[in-house]
């Protein structure tokens, strides 16, 4: 879909007051959510980003180091492999692992350690090597 076509679709949605619009074909998925600002997500299978975001899967307290260890589980800039534990989510006496979804380097921490996080809260960015 061309950018101009996308703009036209957005105008139609605005006029028809349709809040959420999603269209999917074999090779492309476009999702438009009206709002301030309107968000447009395009997924055509190609990954143009420099890395991936690791998000929390359960509510709890975000920890970058194990309470009995000194220093972080993985330092910023450290190498990780897919499946590595990179942080913990503490839920009462449970420490649930946060798992790296890809190989790369731990580029950025996106949430303040010790903060309460919920499902989908972005925690880390892992940059591809």
């Amino acid at each position, binding site marked *: 879909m061309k950018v101009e076509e996308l703009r036209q679709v957005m105008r139609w949605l605005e006029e028809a007051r349709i*809040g*959420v619009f999603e269209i999917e074909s074999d090779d492309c998925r476009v999702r438009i959510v*009206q*709002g301030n600002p309107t968000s447009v997500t395009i997924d055509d299978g190609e990954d143009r980003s420099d890395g991936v975001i690791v998000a929390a899967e*359960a509510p*709890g*307290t975000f920890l970058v180091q194990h309470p009995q260890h000194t220093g972080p589980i993985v330092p910023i800039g450290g190498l990780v492999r897919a499946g590595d534990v990179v942080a913990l989510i503490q*839920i009462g006496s449970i420490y649930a692992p946060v798992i790296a979804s890809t190989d790369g380097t731990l580029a950025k921490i996106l949430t303040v350690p010790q903060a309460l996080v*919920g*499902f989908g809260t972005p925690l880390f960015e892992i940059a591809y090597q």
Partner: protein
Amino acid sequence: MTRRFDKVLIANRGEIALRILRACRLLDLETVVVHSEADRAAGYVGLADQAVCIGPPPAARSYLNPAALLLAAEATGAQAIHPGYGFLSEDAAFAERVEACGLTFIGPSAASIRTMGDKIAAKRAMQAAGVPCVPGSEGALPDDAAAVGRIAATVGYPVMIKAAGGGGGRGMRVVRFASELADALAITRAEARRAFANPDLYLEKFLERPRHVEIQVLCDAHGTELWLGDRDCSLQRRNQKVVEEAPAPGIDRDLIARIGERCAEACRQLGYRGVGTFEFLYEDGAFFFIEMNTRLQVEHTVTEMTGGLDIVQKQIEVALGEKLALTQADVTLSGHAIECRINAEDPVSFAPSAGRITRWDLPGGPGVRVDSHITCGDVVSPHYDSLIAKLVVHGADRRDALERARAALSEMKVEGISTNIPLHRDILQDDAFRAGGVTIHHLEERLAQGRAR
């Protein structure tokens, strides 16, 4: 004195999450609102002391996910869970899990929920307490269709075949003639097994022109069982209530008081705790129990308006273990209240209407209350129930309440999505509704006539 809990997790969304949050604030309780990704930006979420996202938009993975709710309680240190209505509010297994985690479930015991969830057990308990029930089978129906035929003949056609695990209009079938009985039994039994995992059926006399009248109860753990008033919820479409009012018009108040006392007695015998509603069909001057809802109801507001009590606050106080500082003599009714459920739906086709609200003008003035979580600019999500506001009016008498409802609806302006406000305006012009006492079929019959014209 330390309280049983001082932090409440609200396991619901929308207007009722906000309603519960307000009651918690009045009691100086901290609040945790859990929400799905779709409700992240909702205004009431920001009002809570803590807010936690528990899952993606589909309810099965968020508001209906017991593990996510319990993890959120653990992570936030909430010691009590208020389930609201719908979702997990009448799930006995969830209530049990909450208590097993050492938390307080703000509602009745799991045993009470389980008893009332099984319609046969519920009816037996009501008969024991002297609550009038619809004439029908004693307990579950036998497998033998001929034996069922004899029961049906004794009760008298038409009869209704119902699933013990059903409710809210699901799992039931009307049989008008003996020749239709065997097929109806087979189909309903198969449905019951599939939908409720409970193949038990029972049979009741089918009432042709009943009204839906219900009694609100409130009980503490110290032996106080009160009935707070009656509501008429006969205006329904597909078993969904559209307009509710209190008190029920044109019914002898002494008769209602006797029924209310039977409900309080049933609570005493069951050891019931918290708020609840006994639903009845009312026909030809007689009440017939149909089911009990073991939770707060959407339409609790009309009883609040006529009785002057904050029912949600009382519900939480009872869960805190407090003794009700009320007796039945303190429960008095004043005036008349009407609630219009404002839904995000097409007023003619009733198709849900999702999208962004671009105008949200609410009515005001004496005796007008709007319970809503919506603010202008909000997006109504297609994932959940379409209820976006409850317009509740209170007047000196029914006529006054009707006028206030009419005036309030004329002020209410919503744009960006469709709502059923035009339907409510029509209902308030309807002669039969204005006269009071329409049956549960009235709205659908009226809509069918409208389509035929």
